[in-house]
């Protein structure tokens, strides 16, 4: 997709050990992706308090992405397993409140998956854009 999607605000929460490093890898490999995502570094997806995501939408974020280590690879052994439970529940609840499911995403990106991170961001941006353009 086109990397230039003006006025879309996406907040990305990336775990320090895998996805943040993965996003660094994206840069290292000079893979490009849309610039709408603003990354907040967190230690682990287990730290991801659903409240922070609700606050992000409340503050006007168009989309939110949370990305962590692949299951089994958590630096803290199990943080991402907790996140893997919070995510579907939160997504479902947000959708119930009318926050479209295209606006909230999660991914597993390891420290070596620079390309994957770019793909994930592209996909998320496209979904959020689709929500905004097509309702």
């Amino acid at each position, binding site marked *: 997709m086109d*990397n*230039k999607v*003006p006025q879309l*605000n996406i*907040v990305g929460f990336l775990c*320090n050990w895998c996805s*943040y*490093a993965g*996003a*660094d890898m*994206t*840069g*290292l490999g*000079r*893979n*490009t*992706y849309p*610039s709408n995502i*603003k*990354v*907040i*570094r*967190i*230690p*682990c997806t*287990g*730290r*991801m*308090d*659903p*409240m*922070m995501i609700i*606050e*992000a939408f409340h*503050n*006007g*974020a168009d989309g939110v992405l949370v990305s962590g280590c692949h299951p089994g690879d958590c*630096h*803290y*052994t*199990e*943080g991402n397993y*907790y*996140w893997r439970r*919070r995510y579907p529940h939160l997504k479902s609840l947000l959708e119930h409140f009318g926050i479209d499911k295209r606006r909230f995403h999660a991914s597993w990106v390891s420290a070596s998956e620079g390309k994957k991170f*770019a793909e994930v961001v592209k996909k998320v941006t496209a979904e959020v854009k689709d929500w905004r353009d097509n309702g």
Partner: protein
Amino acid sequence: MARIGVFVCHCGTNIAGVVDVTRVAKYAGSLPGVKVAVDYKFMCSDPGQNTIIDAIKKYGLDRLVVSACSPRMHEATFRRTAERAGINPYMVEMANIREHVAWVHSDDKELATQKAMKLMEMAVAKVRRSEALSKMFAPIEKRALVIGGGIAGIQAALDIAGAGYKVLLVEKEPSIGGRMAQLDKTFPTLDCSACILTPKMVAAAQDPNITLLTYAEVTEVCGFVGQFEVKIKKKAKSVNSKCIGCGVCTTKCPSKKALSEFDEKLAPRKAIYTPFPQAVPNVPVIDRTACTFFLTGKCKICEKVCPTGAIDYTQQDEFIKEKFGAVVVATGFDIYDHSNYGEYGYGEIKDVITGLQFERLISSTGPTAGHVTRPSDHREVKNVVFIQCVGSRDEAKKRPYCSRVCCMYTAKQAMLLKDHYPETQAYVFYIDIRSAGKNYEEFVQRAQNEYGVLYLRGRVSKIYERANKLLVKGADTLSGAQVEIEADLVVLANGFEPKKGAKEFAQLFHMSSDQYGFYNELHPKLAPVETAISGVFVAGCCQSPKDIPDTVAMASATAAKVCALFAKEKLEVEPLIAGVNQLTCSGCETCYNVCPYSAIEMKDKEVKRGEVRHVAEVLESVCKGCGACVGACYSKAVDLKGFTDRQVLDQVETATAPITDN
């Protein structure tokens, strides 16, 4: 007001080629609390760092934002820079405008610049809420507990004691020695197991730094790294310290009902016994479930024959509570029980034995004094079939893992058999041969080529008892033929499984185990002897099946870890950890349940004057700062230093607000 300095790095043209760094710096200068904002070619270079130090002094800065590369690259660098200029190192934030902006948004410089401004602004928002943090210190009880007196535990204890630290070695059985003591010879050198083990056992017993506690079990653990408090049950031996180990009692004891655990139940043992002659300590215990006196109230022969009056029938189990700074768990393994292998006779065919039983049979100290005879009729054997992968690599039996040693010990046993009885023939049914290890493959080759052991690739489908023989039916998948061997004895290469009760034991320490019950190491590659519980290390087969050299190496590694821990004056604790606000804690124990490190303790505490509540408390020296508790706490009572709710919220708010750049 916070006094923030923002330093925007060009990284040569890496950043400046895409991002308008002067605009980023200019925007930074307009943000509340930012006292100075400058850009420079290479912030991480010496002159770059000096720019920062000079600015800190000139503007009296108390916190920094460096807009440059990834914090994973240079956060430590700039933290040190800050520290050199007298600022708390945790008052530094980085905005990653290289990996996350310049390198990935090179296709639109305007958007890239805007994003760089935003990321910088978010870092400013975060650093504004940063708090000065300092490393914390906790005391260390410089005494190690080693649980399990097998070769792993002995080695770990010896190494730790060798470094000058006190060790308590706890063993469940009456003697240390463990599984290795049961073995006859060891591969690939075929040296006598007892000959190399016994000196170590004696060394452990004699080491002034090691206290042996046999016939004892750990029952309760609390505390944390540096400060474990462990309750140990000393089971009543019914023999007191007057015993000199003369052994008269064991010879005179009339009871022969019990089966020897050491001899894998191939032979009876007395009610008062030492597991084997070389036992350390050489003090017998009374098995009260077998002792005539305890069963009927009459006998007391041992008391009568004891020259030192060491027999004490009134002894009770005794509990002791001691403090340790670190724990090595070396609780060993059990042999897979093949009674649910229908094809091998459900464990009911007497002459189908386990590998370990074979070790006892062929061992000169064993029940047959080294004569390999059939357990059923004590006949000598001619044809012996060895079957590998029993309870290993078997998905159907929920044991998909490889036990790693069976290929080798089967080869060894086949060779020993031939050594003892040149006229015998050994057959080995195998799936494939795993002989990775120094001189291992050569060893297996020797078994086949020099000892004429017949290796048949395939599984055994059935063993029948027929006319005092065992008919072993199987497939040779290499020739494609069905094979039928008339054997006298079948030896199964039983795999390893976790010790019975391993999971319950793990609970004591809150260690995690895998689905089989083997204890999980902290990291499969980079932290193979640590566990998720700080200060608890694992050695030997309780972690996964392994051979003796690996076990010994692992044990020494745990010792090195323990010594490294003890070498410190105090325990240094990273300050980026969780903390509970007990005023707002509702005591629901959610954090306690989710913490992967058992770093949360629940306490009844007076949180306000006159108000005692059940609340959580973070054990600072145990917490690793993952934040799982923060994500789970609905009372919003836990926060994570360095990633506080306030910091994250302000980042979120800033991320979603428009750029107010005019």
